[in-house]
């Protein structure tokens, strides 16, 4: 009995001794340290914390600056919201003119892309486009195939502005021009639309270069697309790859080329 009582007491004593010894050693160490050593330790700790934060920040920044988005651009009434609903939610919707951008995730296996539907109205399209263009990895430009002959100048102007943009030229590698509304009788085929747009952009780059200076300090932001001296072709825009496909946004059948392109992009 006395042994069992003694043992815990002994254990306690041993523990206390250990504790004391640790304390003693630390105290010894501290007393041995000079002031300079203390300062060095403080500096080392501070630098370590700073490095850790830097690394974390860089990680965060890089993940946000990573381009994970696809932008849906186009004129009013070209079918962007319909296409958006079909791609991301597999449903048809009744839609009116959008006032605000909408976004959704498009998943391909493990990877996912954020799809942004930018309203096409002339007053808000550029401000909203500027907000999200730095996240764009690819652009889907939707064109109404039935009214292309009437709207070719407006379409070309928007497409030209989008392609000229500095952020787009540095980050976006693939552009898909979707010739929508192919179910209508007056719809033109994709190669014809491509030719029409090329002719228009040819004229456009001349007029854009001769625009007046703006009243603010911002200089003329009109780059010259394509090659000088030759007629404009979309193949001149390397490294940006521009493709033309046909589609019908309503109903779920003709969206194959678009989904292929998205899968390739992801």
């Amino acid at each position, binding site marked *: 009995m006395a042994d069992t009582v003694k043992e815990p007491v002994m254990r306690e004593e041993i523990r206390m001794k250990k504790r004391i010894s640790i304390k003693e050693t630390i105290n010894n160490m501290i007393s041995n340290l000079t002031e300079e050593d203390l300062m060095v330790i403080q500096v080392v700790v501070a630098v370590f914390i700073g490095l850790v934060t830097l690394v974390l920040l860089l990680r965060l920044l890089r993940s946000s600056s990573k381009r994970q988005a696809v932008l849906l651009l186009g004129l009013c009434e070209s079918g962007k*919201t319909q296409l958006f*609903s079909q791609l991301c*939610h597999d*449903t048809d*919707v*009744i*839609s*009116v*003119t*959008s*006032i*605000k*951008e*909408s976004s959704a995730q498009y998943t391909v296996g493990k990877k996912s892309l954020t799809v942004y*539907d930018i*309203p096409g*109205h*002339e*007053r*808000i399209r*550029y*401000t909203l486009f500027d907000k999200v263009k730095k996240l764009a990895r690819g652009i889907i430009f939707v064109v109404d195939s039935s009214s292309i002959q009437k709207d070719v*100048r*407006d379409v070309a*102007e928007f497409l030209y502005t989008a392609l000229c943009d500095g952020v787009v030229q540095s980050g976006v590698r693939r552009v898909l021009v979707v010739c929508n509304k192919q179910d209508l009788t007056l719809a033109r085929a994709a190669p014809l639309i491509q030719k029409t747009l090329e002719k228009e952009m040819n*004229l*456009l780059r*001349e*007029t*854009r270069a*001769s*625009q*007046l*200076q*703006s*009243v*603010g*300090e*911002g200089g003329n932001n009109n780059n010259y697309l394509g090659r000088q001296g030759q007629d404009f072709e979309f193949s001149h825009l390397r490294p940006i790859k521009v493709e033309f496909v046909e589609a019908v946004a309503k109903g779920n059948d003709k969206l194959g080329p678009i989904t292929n392109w998205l899968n390739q992009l992801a």
Partner: protein
Amino acid sequence: MLDFFAVITKGGLVLWYFQDAAQQLKTSIDAINALIRNVVLQERGGENIFSHGSLALKQHLDNEFDLLFVAVYQNILQLSYVDKFLLDIQREFTNCFREQLRQGFYYESFDFGAEYKRILKQAESLTKIIKAEPRKPRTFEESEKSKKTVNSMIKHRGGDQVQPKKPSKKKEGKSKKQECNNNSKGSQVEEVGEEDDEEEERENEDLVVNGSAVEENKEEDVTALDNNDENELDEETLRKNREKMFGKRSTPKAAKINSTKSPKPTKVKKGKEGTVWDLGGKDSTSLDYSSKSGDSTRSSLRPDFLPDQSQIGTLSGNVRDMDMTKDESKKKASSGGMFSMFRGLVGGKTLTEADVTPVLDKLKDHLIGKNVASDIAGKLTNSVGEQLKGKVIGTFEGVTSTVRKTLTNSLVKLLTPGRRLDILRDVMEAKNSGRPYTMAFCGVNGVGKSTNLAKITFWLIENNLRVMIAACDTFRAGAVEQLRTHTHHLNALHPPEKHHGNDMVHLFEQGYGKDAAGIARHAIDYARKNNYDVVLIDTAGRMQDNEPLMRALAKLIMVNEPDLTLFVGEALVGNEAVDQLVKFNRALADHSTSAKPQKIDGILLTKFDTIDDKVGAAISMTYITGQPIVFIGTGQTYTDLRRLDAEAVVNALMS
């Protein structure tokens, strides 16, 4: 009664809609698209009703979940319950589907039909009840008389009460005149004559009353006298009116015959009456204007001055210092909210009207200080207020910064052109169709039409386009010479030798005093025959109120159908811009005979270098017309022509 009702997200999805059987879905969607384009995107959200063809649309924004509630009904119906109905529906819808909306699950089905019908029935029954109530006459408390003090109703020499009668009597006379005109045109002159005589008589009677009811201080006497006189007068006028009416009713034709037969005798009044002189009554008492009571102090007292007994004794002693009440209130606000500051930083706060209104008022004053027209500034701030009501602002955002940001976005949206602006491309297009591109310049006097026309000519010839200037200002002395001087200068800068022997600028003029529309038409024909690419039409400056000149301008625009009608306005103009543009647009629309009249297509803002950052005129002009600013003139040399940069201008405006 509502043809169509829809709940729409700002991203363009129709979440739920109710369609009346007779209405086509496509027409409703078209109407809603037109509503969005004209109202929401042009910042006219404060205005109540939008009409599109035969339909009227009312909208309501829900800023918490970014929804738009739209009600569509026939324009001819005037439904009074729609505003409240929209609010009720908004509340009900957001309550039912709160979770779905918050998480953005817009693609699920929204079953709202039953509640919608219930609320609609409620609203319609409520209006029926209100309509069914007979209109009760006002109680004494509601009438205006109860709001007047007794002393203000005291006659001052009998003039006050009698005067208001005069206009009413004259109105009676006039209405009778109109009746006479309707009934019998032949006897118009005679009737008029009668009317005038009658009015004279009545005036004389009034003066009789005037004279006999002078005493100011004996209030009871005065009011009693006047009451009697009123009654007397009423009886007399009643008698006369009755005579007239029965006279007309019994023998309308006889009256006609009588009057046509003998015009002269009817001018003489019925019987002879003694003339009544200006000074009215012959009594000496009626001519006595002295105060009756003999108390001179009371007579000098103004009848509407009520001595405030409580003021006596308050200002005894030294004059007190100023009360700095403003600072006190400020201190209170900050002290009570030491932690409210932090509360504003953390957590989502819902904006209410009370939060937003003071900031908006300050911003409105700021805009007005920057030369935005005052009612435009008011409308803009109202529209921004509508966009902010109920909005949830995130963490680290203050109310002021959110309101400023919204207002900045709205201003940029307003200044961004609503259509593609590429004159050179359009000129090329016109060239391909074999006709010249025509631009007309209109505006009030002295804004810089001819100067900026010369600048635009210079820009066009720099881009290898041949320009013809049509001198349609045939009124102002020296206008044609001014344009001729510009033509010489520009041709010297771009001589024909450098351009394959074609002269780049040509002036088409036919001197002074001719018809401007004709000159313009001939100019365009000449340009087409001689392969000129652009025709610029310079018109005379005219004030917006000058009807014949506005008609002449409308005729010029209608006959020649220019591709671009530019309104030239100077940046220095303030509230006048609103008036000018509204009247110019209206004149162009009214005096045109075509179904779709051509209005102002663009704005040229001149003298921009004279304003430093008071660029508000740009906002006023674009708000009113909805058209973009095509060019900006910044000086008097040929190179002082610029294009609008919306962001830069808005920065200058909001700084």
